[in-house]
């Protein structure tokens, strides 16, 4: 979330799409209800199903799963056409005025310029800004320099960007944006999404009404969850939302922003800590083979400022070397020296996509031989449970750390696998009993980036052990083996810094202090004269150094456990501004800042757009930025310097246009159909899908065609259950005892199905059996003149659980149905929107 849970109460308008917070984040959703009650805020719910969020909405529209970009693109078009945009914000805080290089082509045919069909990738060198100065009034033809041929080295942003503040230059970002979405007319939106034109216009009018007559006081927010991410174009859907919020000037403002609702208690922290193949803690890019040494690596990952010359850009990521070196010092301690590039060679360099779907594919193909799964039920999560089970059959060993018997640890006796077949499965499986949440202390980071410490209440049951102890003990034993026996490149294992008082039971408070970081030599701030002695905890990431005198496990968490104590344990309940900032409750990254980009809540002169929702402001007398929140800005940069508010971007401004392959599949979002779709892409039938999506080749990777599978299916969670966990909890099982499939009344009638009848849902990959939930909350849709049904099914049941073990339920995980295709940017598989057919059992 750019903002936070409580901040939703400050909004005037909510667009909830690709998410169902009433069911999946009920306690966060209270703030949406507060906004409705206290501010008369409006709520628009757009979803393939009428959900319990929709039940509280002022307007609900049923959309075909996977057509969100078409809808949002239509919204962009509507806002521009009707001048419901924040002009001043747009010019000064976004790259709307930047001029794009000649040679850049919009995807009228479904492809941007630079596509290489052989490799299935883009050369993004034309997706760049034009170098130059103020181009306002300059005609395109005689201003453009000769276009250089695509260079072999990765393209870089020009330091001095050409711009046109009148936004009239035909190649300025704003004009390109307008052109890109001119195709997304209400009629086209209706044909693609199934939302009738009048309803679309009603929603578009309502949502953009916050910018009626250019008024900047009101704010709207966009709230989403995995309904957007789980698509082969998921990242681009979110980009479209960001574009809308930048167009309307809603980013950085109380009650605004683009708010991802994370689905798990510490999914934010797990991402921040980089439990992901392509990153290191604090969103540092993981090294690749081309990073032959530390300097090369740092050069590749450290951006340089790129802006119009009269403007300023903080380009905060210019500090990247400090973050990276401090991380290496945290990991390898004394073994990380200036001379050995701070042990940079200890880090593995990946050369291909090692993301989730590839793990299973590579395991199936024999490349991955062993797996450790802690609190992660990979078989259930899918996509394509069958493929994952068959991949595990190929593995030599599997270690599962869990608190309940789960499907992954019992893949070898999944339904359908006979005792005979079990004898042929050679995988050794260890199932280790872990500790539940109440048995462990430690910090978790919520969706609003609040890092909060929790305390252990009870000891783990029986022989169960704390997860961190198990990982530590496995590692220490491996280390011992390498110490005794030697082996391949033992250095990183032997030299890993492990300075915890009890090495086999690392205290998480000590780990947290290491993550925060400390000084390794006396440090002095030249400006203020403040000194931090060697060994002291660092107060914030501004103190980090790239010379090895600081260590920090994750730079964005620097400041959470300082010399003043554990900031993440704070319990101050005061909120002086009334905006729900709660600055003294726990601690929020970065630097205890609650709303990101909050400089944008002020106009270019540094005065809040809405004087009633003052977050930060320029204090001319003190020559500094002040506020109720920590300003997300250089504190002493006066408005006259025109420093951009989006300090993490090298441009300093928000990106309507995402240049040079920031996203692999295009600088603007374009509507593509899900890989299984009832219709060809109506914008460009010859390029229906995202061209960058990798197709897998195992026998399980089958895709269905609409003639055989005509129904659009989506999966979701219910408020009463949590993933594959609460099927072990008798209370939650009582609330939702059995799996079901929600189907429209009309579809049920056509198939002679009555509510509670058992039905089969069949995709090209598997069959799911559950009872029919016949409801009016799903209606048939007209897609380009053709009637299309949508159905939905919750994901919660598997083959181990209370009712499952009693044999009451069909033992079919929902992800038997889903295809293994993933977003090229975020590598998230497409679980929302695939094709099925149904049959009565």
């Amino acid at each position: 979330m750019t903002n936070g849970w409580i901040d939703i109460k400050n909004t005037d308008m909510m667009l909830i799409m690709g998410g169902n917070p009433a069911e999946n984040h009920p306690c966060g959703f209270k703030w949406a209800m507060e906004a409705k009650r206290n501010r008369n805020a409006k709520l628009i719910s757009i979803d393939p199903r009428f959900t319990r969020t929709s039940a509280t909405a002022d307007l609900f529209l049923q959309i075909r799963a996977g057509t969100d970009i078409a809808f949002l693109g239509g919204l962009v078009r509507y806002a521009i056409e009707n001048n419901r945009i924040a002009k001043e914000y747009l010019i000064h805080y976004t790259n709307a005025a930047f001029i794009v290089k000649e040679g850049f082509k919009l995807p009228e045919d479904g492809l941007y310029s630079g596509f290489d069909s052989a490799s299935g990738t883009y050369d993004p060198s034309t997706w760049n800004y034009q170098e130059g100065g103020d181009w306002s009034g300059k005609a395109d033809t005689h201003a453009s320099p000769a276009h250089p041929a695509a260079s072999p080295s990765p393209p870089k942003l020009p330091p001095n960007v050409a711009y046109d503040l009148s936004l009239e230059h035909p190649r300025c970002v704003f004009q390109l944006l307008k052109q890109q979405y001119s195709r997304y007319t209400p009629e086209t939106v209706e044909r693609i999404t199934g939302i009738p034109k009048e309803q679309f216009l009603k929603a578009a009018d309502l949502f953009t009404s916050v910018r009626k007559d250019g008024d900047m006081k009101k704010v709207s927010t966009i709230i989403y969850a995995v309904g957007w991410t789980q698509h082969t174009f998921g990242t681009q859907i979110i980009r479209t939302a960001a574009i809308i919020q930048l167009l309307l000037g809603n980013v950085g403002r109380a009650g605004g922003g683009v708010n991802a609702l994370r689905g798990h208690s510490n999914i934010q922290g797990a991402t921040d800590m980089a439990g992901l193949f392509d990153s290191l803690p604090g969103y540092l890019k993981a090294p690749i083979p081309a990073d032959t040494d530390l300097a090369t690596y740092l050069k590749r990952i450290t951006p340089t400022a790129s802006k119009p010359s009269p403007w300023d850009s903080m380009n905060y990521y210019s500090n990247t070397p400090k973050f990276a070196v401090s991380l290496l010092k945290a990991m390898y301690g004394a073994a990380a020296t200036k001379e050995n590039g701070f042990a940079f060679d200890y880090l593995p360099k990946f050369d291909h996509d090692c993301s989730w779907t590839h793990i299973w594919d590579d395991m199936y193909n024999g490349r991955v031989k062993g797996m450790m799964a802690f609190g992660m039920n990979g078989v259930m999560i899918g996509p394509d449970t069958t493929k994952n089970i068959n991949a595990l059959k190929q593995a030599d060993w599997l270690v599962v750390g869990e608190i309940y018997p789960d499907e992954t640890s019992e893949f070898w006796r999944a339904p359908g696998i006979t005792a005979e077949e079990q004898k042929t499965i050679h995988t050794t499986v260890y199932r280790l009993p872990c500790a539940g949440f109440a048995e462990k202390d430690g910090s978790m980071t919520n969706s609003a980036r609040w890092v909060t410490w929790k305390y252990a209440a009870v000891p783990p049951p029986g022989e169960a052990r704390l997860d961190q102890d198990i990982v530590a003990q496995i590692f220490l034993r491996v280390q011992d083996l390498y110490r005794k026996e030697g082996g391949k490149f033992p250095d990183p294992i032997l030299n890993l810094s492990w300075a915890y008082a009890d090495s086999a039971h690392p205290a998480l408070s000590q780990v947290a202090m290491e993550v925060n970081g400390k000084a390794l030599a006396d440090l002095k701030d030249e400006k203020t004269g403040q000194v931090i002695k060697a060994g002291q905890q660092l107060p914030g990431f501004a103190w980090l150094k790239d010379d090895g005198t600081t260590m920090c496990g994750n730079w964005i968490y620097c400041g959470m456990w300082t010399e003043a104590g554990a900031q993440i344990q704070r319990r101050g309940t005061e909120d002086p501004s009334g905006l729900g900032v709660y600055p003294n409750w726990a601690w929020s990254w970065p630097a205890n800042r609650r709303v990101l980009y909050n400089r944008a809540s002020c106009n270019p002169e540094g005065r809040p757009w809405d004087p009633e929702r003052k977050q930060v402001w320029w204090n001319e007398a003190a020559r500094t930025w002040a506020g109720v929140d920590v300003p997300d800005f250089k504190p002493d940069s006066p408005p006259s310097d025109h420093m951009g508010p989006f300090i993490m971007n090298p441009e300093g401004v928000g990106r309507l246009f995402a240049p040079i392959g920031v996203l692999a599949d295009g600088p603007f979002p374009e509507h593509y159909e899900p890989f299984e779709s009832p219709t060809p892409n109506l914008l460009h039938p010859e390029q229906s899908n995202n061209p960058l999506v990798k197709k897998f080749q195992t026998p399980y990777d089958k895709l269905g065609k609409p003639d055989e599978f005509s129904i659009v299916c989506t999966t979701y969670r219910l408020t009463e259950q949590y993933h594959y966990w609460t099927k072990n909890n008798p209370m939650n099982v009582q609330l939702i005892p059995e799996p079901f499939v929600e189907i429209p009344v009309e579809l049920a009638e056509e198939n002679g199905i009555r509510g509670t009848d058992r039905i089969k849902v069949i995709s090209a990959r598997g069959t799911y059996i559950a009872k029919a939930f016949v409801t009016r909350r799903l209606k048939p849709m007209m897609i380009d003149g053709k009637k299309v049904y949508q159905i939905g099914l919750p994901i919660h049941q598997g083959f181990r659980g209370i009712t499952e073990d009693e044999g009451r339920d069909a033992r079919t995980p929902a992800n038997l149905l889903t295809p293994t295709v993933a977003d090229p940017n975020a590598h998230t598989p497409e679980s929302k929107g695939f094709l099925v057919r149904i049959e009565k059992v």
Partner: protein
Amino acid sequence: METSRREFFKIAAVGGAAATVFGFDLKPAYAQLKELKIARATETRSTCPYCAVGCGVLIYTIGDRAKNVTPQVIHVEGDPDHPTNRGTLCPKGSSLEQDMLNPRRLTKPQVRRPGATDWEDISWNDALNEIAHWTKKTRDATFVEKDANGRTVNRCEGISFIGGCTDTNEFNYLVVKTMRSLGLVYLENQARV
């Protein structure tokens, strides 16, 4: 090992009926208001393990943290001080007590040997030693020090670690530290899906 649900109901029902046998009530006649069951219980502040709202929860356990008491959970409710949830909890958070007192919890390390059709118990020591051996064996067999172009890559291609999203930041950090040091590139997390 796993009490079936039906048995569980039976136990609960018998317990409930025992207090009133055929109408004879064993309770004192004029007890009008029930006692507050959490009156002197210990309160521990925790965070709900489910969604990312991160609601503060209060876990009530028996005893007052005295040394001679093994705490047992008796109740869970929302932390009213927590600014986000202000004491509220959803149906999942409200049922956390049953997550902690759950007879289905795993309490012993187990191993399934190749070709076996059932689990067998294993000691922690044996399990950890075997896992360490597997890890070293697979790492040594699949470790790539230099790629085809002679560039140092130092990666282990044969092992994957997948982590859940309800564990702590510190745990995740330890995983990154240890697994990257083993050279893992197949390091993924629920965060991806």
